[in-house]
């Protein structure tokens, strides 16, 4: 056991693995590029739809049903289906990942908007704000924390799933796992796994720091409970966002 660990650390420490087109920095950059691209497209789709549904309440049932059904779709199956149908290349897996990332973002946006105190919304309307102003000046600012929760879940899900993408011959840190598997090179697999775990934890820390510093400087002083209290936890889609779901 200890020999596996020392071999893994030797693999991680080897300067050969820190340069070149198969080096750790390159793989890390690829991993982050895929993640960024997917998040960009998914956010552009999910946030406007979530805002609309959260604000008007129209299509609520459809969104809840769709998000639930999409959540049950197996990541791996969808990735492979897209590759078989559309061929190898960057975009097929990216679209598969977008489909998987939209539900948590949508659920987060929708849960965020609907968790805003109705009194605040009514008050905003009463002082004469138009519907758009109500949405962007009253609901959105109050919903940001919950919405960002959905975004965080989404980012972590994509980082995890991008490691699977390596199985279909794309780059990213997942390559070390599958190259290692083929070669029965366990230190390489373990090294890659540790890098992926470290990346996920680091990104989550950065996002939570961002959330604390910029999104809710006041809210962090309140206990978490008072914020969650207004959210309906028996709705599985909402529960997923609050309980922190969406996993690959």
């Amino acid at each position, binding site marked *: 056991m200890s020999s596996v660990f020392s071999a893994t650390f030797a693999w991680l420490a080897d300067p050969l693995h820190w340069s070149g087109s198969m080096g750790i920095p390159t793989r890390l950059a690829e991993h982050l590029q895929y993640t960024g691209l997917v998040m960009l497209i998914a956010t552009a789709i999910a946030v406007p739809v979530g805002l609309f549904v959260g604000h008007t309440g129209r299509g609520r049932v459809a969104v809840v049903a769709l998000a639930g059904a999409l959540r049950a779709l197996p990541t*791996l199956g969808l990735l492979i289906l897209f590759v078989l149908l559309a061929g190898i290349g960057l975009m097929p897996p990216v679209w598969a990942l977008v489909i998987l990332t939209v539900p948590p973002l949508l659920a987060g946006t929708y849960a965020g908007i609907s968790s805003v105190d109705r*009194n605040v919304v009514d008050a905003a309307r009463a002082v004469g704000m138009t519907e758009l102003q109500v949405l962007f000046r009253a609901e959105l600012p109050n919903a940001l924390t919950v919405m960002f929760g959905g975004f965080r879940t989404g980012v972590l899900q994509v980082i995890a*799933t991008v490691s699977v993408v390596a199985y279909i011959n794309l780059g990213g840190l997942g390559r070390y796992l599958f190259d290692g598997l083929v070669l029965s090179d366990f230190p390489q697999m373990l090294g890659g796994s540790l890098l992926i*775990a470290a990346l996920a934890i680091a990104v989550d820390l950065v996002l939570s720091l961002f959330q604390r510093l910029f999104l809710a400087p006041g809210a962090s002083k309140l206990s978490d409970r008072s914020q969650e209290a207004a959210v309906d936890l*028996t709705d599985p889609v909402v529960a997923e966002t609050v309980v922190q*779901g969406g996993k690959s």
Partner: protein
Amino acid sequence: MEWFLANTGMILERGGQHLVLALVPMVLGLLISIPLAQLARQSRALRSVVLTASSLLYTIPSLALFIILPTILGTRILDPLNVVVALTIYAVALLVRAALDAFDSVDADVSQAAQAMGFKPVARFLQVDLPLSLPVMFAGLRVVSVSNISLVSVAALLGVGNLGMLFTDGLQRDFVTEVVVGIVAILVLALLMDSVLVLLERILTPWERTGPRRGRGSEDDHMEPAGAASRATSTAGEAA
């Protein structure tokens, strides 16, 4: 369709493996997280330690955990035990949060009334707190069930037998039908488990259907943490 009919036996076998790999961690996770949540409720410090640790573990991607665990457990990489342990860790991480929220959702007045009527702590927990926390608990369980079923298929990449094998095999043979059958089979399995959970919840919480619905006024929903409970009651029908 022909392929499906010709391979029903194999698909059922893989489906069975899949179900076991998803179900066992869910049950284990539930059994671990209820006492853990009770423990975490003892103090604020314990609560934040449990929540931080669980969210940290939950952050680790499944594929990485499947590979890290054998080194810690001393198992082989193909051992289904790795998958069970990994998914149990995720289930505990989700369910501890759900259980904490669930126990918090129990109206403190009800709990105190039970105490005043002479319920001993253990009896009060089993007969009052636990049943009343079920709706929120079940929401958590349904999330775990769906997420487990989807996650099990990732283990097929490493060669652990389950429905995910249809994906890896389909890719190698460039055979779309097999992949589609795999996706449908997993969706059916997820739907089946979800229906069982919904049914179980209905049986275990008969008052949710017949009892008077509380919490119509939106004011007190937002005022106190227990508001989650009254909202839970008022919307349980929709969620199901």
